[in-house]
């Protein structure tokens, strides 16, 4: 008898409809920010009409035929539809929405469907839960105002009324108590299925697959991507939380006070990382002049020499050779100089070296009038924005990074090459920012303020677009072609020709040299210990790296690459700064710490069209790839899975075959497992004869399991004897065996309380273990399959 529930009254149905309607109203507030009142009103009207039309429709369907239509495909389609239609909407003039709004919209559509189908009682809980979720989610997304409060109050009233009415209806007994038994076991088994799926798919999910899906709500600020449909601006996540107890938990807040302190400066960092600069005592310094065009360049070079001597910021590539000397400091919680929130790896530029005199890298001039900086206010910040005229538009979408400065005593703001905006909260004056070298900004202070987040918007050159342009790297800037005047340059030029043999385009040449450096040379953290070999006159400090050691530090890589490229007439320069290493990424805090060891040198090549591109010649360091869009991420994750399957297809095929075999033959397999379990228990009971009677219980449990697996599950209220004799045609022998077994079992379970040992003599009953095995022999798994 299936307890037929009483039909849902129209009043009951409308109660749920009202709840849905209120949630709908709250949802409309989410869109109120971006939609015009007219279109909003129309959409509310359409939704409400749909809701009540649907209610009428489904009630009519119910009246005509008792069975409810199959709704599951509709639910799935509706769920997918709102996501799938979003790209279409973005093409239309009404515009698209942020991802979270799209998801809420999908939920809203589902809720409408559930509310319509509420004439079948099973949809009630889903309607209530989805309307509640929609309401709360919409409340979180929409600006709070009097309307929200009104809706909230109404919604509370509606739900309370519904609860009371439901309770009273139940109390009145009109709601039939269902005899359906909610079995915990069944629930657990159902809960195990997703777990099993995760376990099965676990091997497919490498770290990269999972991370490719990170930041699903890109526009909520979690990832910091910049999206034109974003609702709350860029980087509005809650990543920036003050931490004062421990530097490890440090996450500066925007309006923390400026503070000054004496922390190691950038140049101190350099000294600690690379050792002191080697200063030849009594040796005249060779000043390298470009081999050709020295005549033209001479006046400029003379000026360059002057600044070089004045600035005192040269970076000598000839260093005292020391081992790793940095002792770990125990009494400091964090050795990080600053943290980077956002995508890594990231090359943060601080200094640009235009020249190399054979020993030292010489910084360039802090002038560049190609770029105009101006302060613009939006997203609650005053952004210093860089505008320049570029020929090519190879850039990816903007994304944001936040630098959380812990302690670094420099006033240079570490920035990615193609940054488009810098902002510090409450810094509203243009003259706080001072231009330095190309795209390097100083703060008009002694040092960067501590405990202050610096927001940086930047773009990445998307090299996938390079294919369309043939002329890349052909633009030349004379300044970045000069090489030291040294006999070694001949060898270097020879090497570069050798490397780029067969490549006519500059772009291929650059790639060939980069590849060559990355593949043929080893990266060493430190030069081997010892006194630096004296350079013979005219010898370049990178010669030994290039031709003898075939391995060295990153500044040697960068310098050598610069020389190789310049010898091919490709404009190139060396840049130093910090490298935010993905290995230092802290998942829990969602930031990447940058340490002193992360001081790094790399190259920049001139693309032409006023664009420079980062070139990373040192193996082990990577450039930041352009951000993937959501669809690209999903595609990437799928490709990863497909790739993994293709790589392990034999194992995968076997697993799938085995799994489907198991699923297909799950009943015999489970029966076998139950039988093994029973056998083990009986074997154990053989060792403890005083509990031998328990074997009867185990046997009964096994018989019950067999019954369940063969599809003749015994109802909880029916005794075993009755059930078996009713369900199966038993032979005389089987009947006898069953009677005997059950008599022993009954005596064991329900037998007299007043134990009278004389009355029931042990010989009176057969040995329970033997009886059990006899019973299972008669009532085996295969017996129960035969009806």
């Amino acid at each position, binding site marked *: 008898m299936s307890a037929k529930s009483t039909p849902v009254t129209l009043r009951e149905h409308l109660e749920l409809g009202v709840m849905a309607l209120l949630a709908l109203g709250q949802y409309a507030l989410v869109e109120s920010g971006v939609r015009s009142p007219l279109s909003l009103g129309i959409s509310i009207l359409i939704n409400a009409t749909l809701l009540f039309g649907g209610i009428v429709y489904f009630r009519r369907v119910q009246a005509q035929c008792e069975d409810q239509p199959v709704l599951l495909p509709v639910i799935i389609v509706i769920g997918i539809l709102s996501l799938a239609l979003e790209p279409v909407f973005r093409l239309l003039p009404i515009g698209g929405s942020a991802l979270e709004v799209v998801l809420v919209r999908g939920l809203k559509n589902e809720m409408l469907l559930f509310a319509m189908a509420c004439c079948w009682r099973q949809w009630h809980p889903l309607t209530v839960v989805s309307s509640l979720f929609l309401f709360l989610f919409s409340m979180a997304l929409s600006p709070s105002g009097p309307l929200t409060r009104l809706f909230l109050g109404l919604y509370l009233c509606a739900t309370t009324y519904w609860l009371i009415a439901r309770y009273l209806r139940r109390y009145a007994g009109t709601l039939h108590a269902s005899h359906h038994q909610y079995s915990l076991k069944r629930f657990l088994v159902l809960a195990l299925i997703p777990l099993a799926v995760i376990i099965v798919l676990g091997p497919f999910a490498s770290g990269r697959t999972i991370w490719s899906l990170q930041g699903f709500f890109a526009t909520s600020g979690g990832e910091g991507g910049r999206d034109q449909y974003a609702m709350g601006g860029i980087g509005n996540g809650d990543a920036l939380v003050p931490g004062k107890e421990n530097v490890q938990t440090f996450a500066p807040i925007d309006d923390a006070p400026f503070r000054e302190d004496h922390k190691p400066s950038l140049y101190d960092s350099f000294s600690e990382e690379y050792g002191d600069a080697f200063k030849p005592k009594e040796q005249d310094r060779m000043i390298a002049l470009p081999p050709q065009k020295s005549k033209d360049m001479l006046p400029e070079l003379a000026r360059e020499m002057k600044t070089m001597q004045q600035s005192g910021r040269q970076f000598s590539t000839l260093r005292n050779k020391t081992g790793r000397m940095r002792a770990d400091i125990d009494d400091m919680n964090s050795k990080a100089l600053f943290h980077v929130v956002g995508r890594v790896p990231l090359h943060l530029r601080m200094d640009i070296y235009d020249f190399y005199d054979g020993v030292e890298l010489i910084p360039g001039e802090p002038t560049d009038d190609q770029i105009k900086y101006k302060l613009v206010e939006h997203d609650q910040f005053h952004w210093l924005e860089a505008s320049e005229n570029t020929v090519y538009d190879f850039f990816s979408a903007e994304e944001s990074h936040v630098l959380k400065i812990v302690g670094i005593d420099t006033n240079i703001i570490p920035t990615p090459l193609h940054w488009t905006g810098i902002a510090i909260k409450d810094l509203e004056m243009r003259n706080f920012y001072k231009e330095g070298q190309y795209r390097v900004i100083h703060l008009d202070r002694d040092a960067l303020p501590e405990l202050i987040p610096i927001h940086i918007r930047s773009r990445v050159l998307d090299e996938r677009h390079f294919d369309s342009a043939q002329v890349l790297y052909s633009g030349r800037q004379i300044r970045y072609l000069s090489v030291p005047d040294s006999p070694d340059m001949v060898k270097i030029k020879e090497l570069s020709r050798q490397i780029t043999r067969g490549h006519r385009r500059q772009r291929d040449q650059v790639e060939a040299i980069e590849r060559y450096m990355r593949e043929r040379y080893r990266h060493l953290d430190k030069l081997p210990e010892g006194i630096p070999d004296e350079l013979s006159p005219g010898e370049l400090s990178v010669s030994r790296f290039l031709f003898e050691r075939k391995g060295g530090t990153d500044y040697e890589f960068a310098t050598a690459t610069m020389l190789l490229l310049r010898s091919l007439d490709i404009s190139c320069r060396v840049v130093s700064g910090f490298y935010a290493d993905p290995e230092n990424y802290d998942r829990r805090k969602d930031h990447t710490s940058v340490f002193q060891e992360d001081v790094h040198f790399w190259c920049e090549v001139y693309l032409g069209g006023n664009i420079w591109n980062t070139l990373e010649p040192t193996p082990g360091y990577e450039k930041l790839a352009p951000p993937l869009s959501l669809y690209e991420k999903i595609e990437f994750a799928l490709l990863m899975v497909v790739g993994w399957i293709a790589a392990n297809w034999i194992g995968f095929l076997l697993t799938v075959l085995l799994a489907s075999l198991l699923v297909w033959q799950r009943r015999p397999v489970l029966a076998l497992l139950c039988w093994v379990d029973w056998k083990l228990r009986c074997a154990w009971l053989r060792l403890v004869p005083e509990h031998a009677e328990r074997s009867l219980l185990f046997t009964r449990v096994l018989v019950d399991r067999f019954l369940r697996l063969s599809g003749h599950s015994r*109802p909880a*209220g*029916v005794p075993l004897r009755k059930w078996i004799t009713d369900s199966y045609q038993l032979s005389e022998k089987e009947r006898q065996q069953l009677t005997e077994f059950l008599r022993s079992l*009954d*005596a064991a379970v*329900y037998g007299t309380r007043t134990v009278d040992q004389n*009355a*029931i003599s042990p010989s009176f009953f057969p040995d329970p273990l033997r009886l059990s095995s006899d019973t299972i022999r008669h009532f085996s798994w295969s017996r129960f399959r035969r009806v």
Partner: protein
Amino acid sequence: MTTSTPPHHTQHSTSVDDHLQQLAQLEETLNSALKGKASVVRMVLICLLSRGHLLIEDKPGLGKTTLAKALAAAIGGQFARVQCTPDLLPSDITGFNIYNQKDHSFEFRRGPVFSDICLADEINRATPRTQSALLEAMAERQVTIDSHCHKLPEQFLVIATQNPSEQHGTFPLPEAQCDRFSMKLSIGYPGQNDEVAMLNSAISKGEHDEKKTNRTSIFDLATLAAIQKEVEQIDMQNILLDYMVRFAHATREHPGLSLGISPRGLLIWQRTAQAAAYLARRSFVIPDDLQETAIPVLSVRLGFEYEQGDALLEELLRTVPLPEFTQK
């Protein structure tokens, strides 16, 4: 398999074995009186052993009276029969005081309830007033007339028959009265072969007929009392009592039932289960006993809202979980 005949593992003494033998004989006698209705006969025996009153509900002419008479004859008691009609008065059942002019005193004239087995035929044709006269007799085994209490015999057993209530000219039994009966049975039409056998036996000679009606009793009332004592001692585990109470709760909370099992109903159910266990030669009750007796015992005392009575009970029996098996 070494055991050829299943030994009955009771702690019954030899007298119990004798009793069981007598009961088997009784069962056989009843079966020959009412052919092809072994299950009904078994229920009648259980009812007898549990000191319960019996309500047989069926259409006319299915052997209700035959069964009652055969039973009365077999247990050797005094048999009385009341044919209920709408004009039957309570005193027609209980008896009345009559003025004895010789002695100038009132003399009590005993009614048909002063017997060991009282057959109240077509009880639902009597007026409610008359029906309720039976109440006290059934429940207390005593009759009060003119403030004088008359004890009824110890083994007093009422077998009432009734026509299905939808027939004309009937007064349905009130629920209070229903609860006094321990079981409601319905005999039903006999099977093809049994009907032929019945017809066949009706052709038999007159002497045969004589022999049948004047059947010698199989055992006396004292034996019956002893058996009933033994039945009361049948053991029952706590988990089963638990099950009964859970079942009772289920009936009380079930929306399809206006009246659940009363505690008295539970006591009766327990006693009948004990009787069933006794008949099955067991010294303890198992769930099968409870389930076997559940429908006749419970259908008489549950108020059904719809015409689904037994189906609903069967559903409840299927869904209320049996006690989990545990070692004692």
